[in-house]
């Protein structure tokens, strides 16, 4: 069982969360060339090691989080709110 330290709720089992995928993906402008969109939609680095990823605390505070996790060892790193404003408010 992975445990995720939600910045709002504290340490919770991962079964309270829903996985949202690679958090390093950035989408291009709407009118960007198709190749850029194809890259963003389909291509992943899929690292064997440290991975930055989205988790939704769907059975908790319902916040989207950015979690650093090692995909080989499942070691957990930093957990922050995905929403930049929330993340800043918590830091402040």
């Amino acid at each position, binding site marked *: 069982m992975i445990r995720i330290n939600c910045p709002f709720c504290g340490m919770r089992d991962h079964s309270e969360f829903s996985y949202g995928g690679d958090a390093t993906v950035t989408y291009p402008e709407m009118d960007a060339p198709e190749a850029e969109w194809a890259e963003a939609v389909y*291509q992943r680095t899929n690292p064997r090691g440290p991975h930055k990823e989205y988790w939704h605390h769907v059975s908790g505070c319902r916040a989207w989080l950015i979690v650093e996790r090692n*995909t*080989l060892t499942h070691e957990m790193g930093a957990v922050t709110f995905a929403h930049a404003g929330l993340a800043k408010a918590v830091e402040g």
Partner: protein
Amino acid sequence: MVSRSPLLANYLPNNAMSPAGPMTILIPSSVMERAQMSGYSVWSVLREGLRGQTGWDRAWRDPQPKTEYDVVIIGGGGHGLATAYYLAKNHGVTNVAVVEKGWLGGGNTGRNTTIVRSNYVQPKSTEFYEHSVKLWENLSHDLNYNVMFSQRGQLGLFHTPAARDAQAKRVNTMIANGIDAELLDREQVRAMVPHLDYSENARFPIIGAIYQARAGTARHDAVAWGFARAADQLGVDILQQTEVTGILREGGKAVGVETSRGTIRAKKIGVAVAGSTGHVMGMAGIERLPIESHKLQAFVSEPLKPLLDCVIGYGAPGAHFYISQSDKGGMVFGGDLDFYNSYAQRGNLPIVQEVAESALAIMPCLGRVKLLRHWAGIMDMSMDGTHIMSKTPVENLYLNAGWCYGGFKATPASGWHFADLIANERPDELTAAFSLDRFERGYAIDEKGMGPTPKLH
């Protein structure tokens, strides 16, 4: 006509021709002699029975790596070994090495739930998986190795009228493509498998099933060993305990591999390492692929007396489950992915609970059965749920990947078409559909219609 040893020729049925039609193969006479010497037959079993099992040869050689091969296949699972076998058998390319970092079939080949079927709906997938089932049907004879392919039939249960409509469409699509399929109602399913939960208050009421009689299971280890032995007899070098640590490139072309046993040069390199595709392709400078690695757990119970003589699967909101009984008696079953990227070949307890709940929802008689083992394998989950078999941006480097849940059943056809791609340096009409660039061209083959979210395929 396929050339075979006299011993094998007697042993093979007349319909042993491959589905792709007649072909000529080129095998050096010394190799054929060795093949004749160690062919398995009823007579060799009887002879060894009388001699105390002392006369068996090892099933394949343990050679030293040569400094150069025509083709190096990275990955000694079912797909890599099948590729090497068909390179030698179908294309006469015998100067081939299969490079495996662990032992044969120690990855996903030995970790799946061994189900073989061809109940697909997308045009190229139906063709591909049906070719695979046809190869399975003669595989034991072809390899002279009993892969224990058992066409015990597969039932895909459905629980709602909407699911019934979807499966009726699937049946029609399969029949239109020359694949056997039947739509069964509740009573027909009950007659076949009376010990499912048919009660009115079942969590997933069974209203019928899609049935493919030619589907079934095979012994996964035997598939790796059978392909390894048959490839070895055709001259292929199988290099176990040989980890690839780098892919050599010169002027944009792949020219060899660095391994834990030294440098091996190669005119062509095939990568068949599903689960670790991103890691290995990264060695060739290809850092991004339309694949995520996810883990999938599987389970086996203590051995039981005969309880289930077919494969059963079902998918419903909140549950996904498939089960069969091995020849040893263990109930072999599995469910969904763990749903997050992972390269860890180990599972976790929430999935154990989910799969157990799914099992009991449909087969309450399993309630007191003890679990013997559970384990995990790493799936290459592709962006459209379909595999990738393709040339790559690096010349002479070929990729076989992205099998999602479905790699085991594809093993023979995967080897067949990947060998064809490597030998002829161009995809055949079928393989062209599975190219790496299909996503950017807008030709994704999305069997389940889930879009570019790998964990949902």
